[in-house]
């Protein structure tokens, strides 16, 4: 089953304000392994080769926090989505 289809099963109350932010885009350009692009369960982070930047699809975030701790450069400003926004688990 494709990840996109799985995320589609989840219920989200999407905030128009992203709760994830790359602190310094220059750091990503020089980041060797770019772990955020594969450790995230929801694959929120995608490296855009042409524009040399990390795209952040925060809408699918399951709010685990893996990226915050897995980024070797501590380059992700991770905040909780505003109250009531973000993932709403039906089962948990």
């Amino acid at each position, binding site marked *: *089953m494709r990840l996109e289809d799985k995320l589609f*099963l989840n219920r989200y109350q999407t905030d128009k304000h992203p709760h994830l932010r790359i602190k310094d885009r220059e750091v990503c350009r020089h980041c060797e392994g770019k772990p955020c692009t*594969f450790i995230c369960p929801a694959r929120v982070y995608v490296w855009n080769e042409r524009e040399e930047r990390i795209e952040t699809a925060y809408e699918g975030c399951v709010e685990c*926090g*893996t990226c915050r701790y897995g980024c070797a450069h501590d380059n992700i400003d991770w905040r909780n*989505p505003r109250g*009531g926004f973000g993932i709403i688990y039906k089962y948990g």
Partner: protein
Amino acid sequence: MAERFEVVVVGAGPAGLAAALTLARAGVEVIVFERGEHPGSKNVMGGVLYRHPTEAVVPGFYHQAPLERPVVEQRLWLLTGEAALTLGYKDMVFAGEPFNAFTVLRARFDRWLADQAVAAGALLINETVVEDLLWENERVVGVRTGREGGDVRAEVVVLAEGANSLLTQKAGLKPDGINTNQLAVAVKEIIALPREKIEDRFNLEEGQGCTIELLGEATKGMLGTAFIYTNKDSLSVGVGVLLASLVRRRLNPNDLLEHLKSHPMVRSLLAGGESKEYQGHLIPEGGYQAVPKLYGNGVLVVGDAAMLVNGVHREGSNLALTSGLLAARTILAAREKGDYSEANLAPYRRALEESFVLKDLKKYQGASFFFDQNPQFFTLYPGLLSRAAREFLTVDNVPKRAKQKRILREITAARSRFQIARDLYSLWRVMG
């Protein structure tokens, strides 16, 4: 003028709610902030809730709480590419009162537990993020919420914010940014199946449940476990591995889960099921050495935020509930004295040390590091054991003694007798 309560609890999970419920029952003015739409809407675990520690918080909870199935059987599967070595224990004593453990779905159970706290007199405020602690003269005096004019003052704040413990880190109780060796990333899918199918496939009587823990190829040899738990009319299927090894191996957690689901031992259990939800969560598995400072002036830390997880036995909810209960008792004792300073909250740590919570974490304090440094237990040995079983069980007119020799030769070619003896000895040292 800020609102004022005796106690603020940050987070409506088992730890925070155990604290809030116990305090409310004792007549303490307690307010619980939950960032989700309702308690449980952000909360995830594999799914096992233990009866004994839960009853310490809500006696007789299993008569009313939304539980899935009582666990009557626990299985352990050591997977290789196309085989599995299995071990299990089934006991009908676990099928009736007082029960041992239940599978649960947290979005339902936590909501119910919060209802109990509210019924006891706690005030629950949903959809509210606590963004910071309020400090005065080096003591915590309340919280700042994301709501406008949302400062709430309190005598003591209980941090029950979960594994991604931003406030605990901000308060300097634990270092900012947890080491990737101390965190596991887990993903899980809820897969719906008719209850009769579940009972047939898992050899269960009506309403009963079982758990399967899977090692070896289930995590592609990484430090971690996979699991399949039976709910009423769904399965919880997941895999959790150490974040450090995930980074090292450049793997994606969902790809791991799909790998597990496609294993011949697993896919037949899931066949025809319909995925309902996909979840991801961190598990703080740093063990005893990673436990942060658990108290300060006007503040206590409980549950996952306090890294109270026993990864070896996949226990967490029981440590969370017990820590919440012990935190509440400490607060009640401090309340008698009218002083919530650090010295009066320190007994919380001692109470945890005297309970199974820190005793168990201490027992396994070397385990995570040991298995990370000795990957052969998750890679080499499952393969060797599996091939030994295959050789021994293949009937091909080779005499048994010759088979034994052949097995021994293969094993000692892969790892010397001396190394095996040393592995077994250190395994016993770490786990025994």
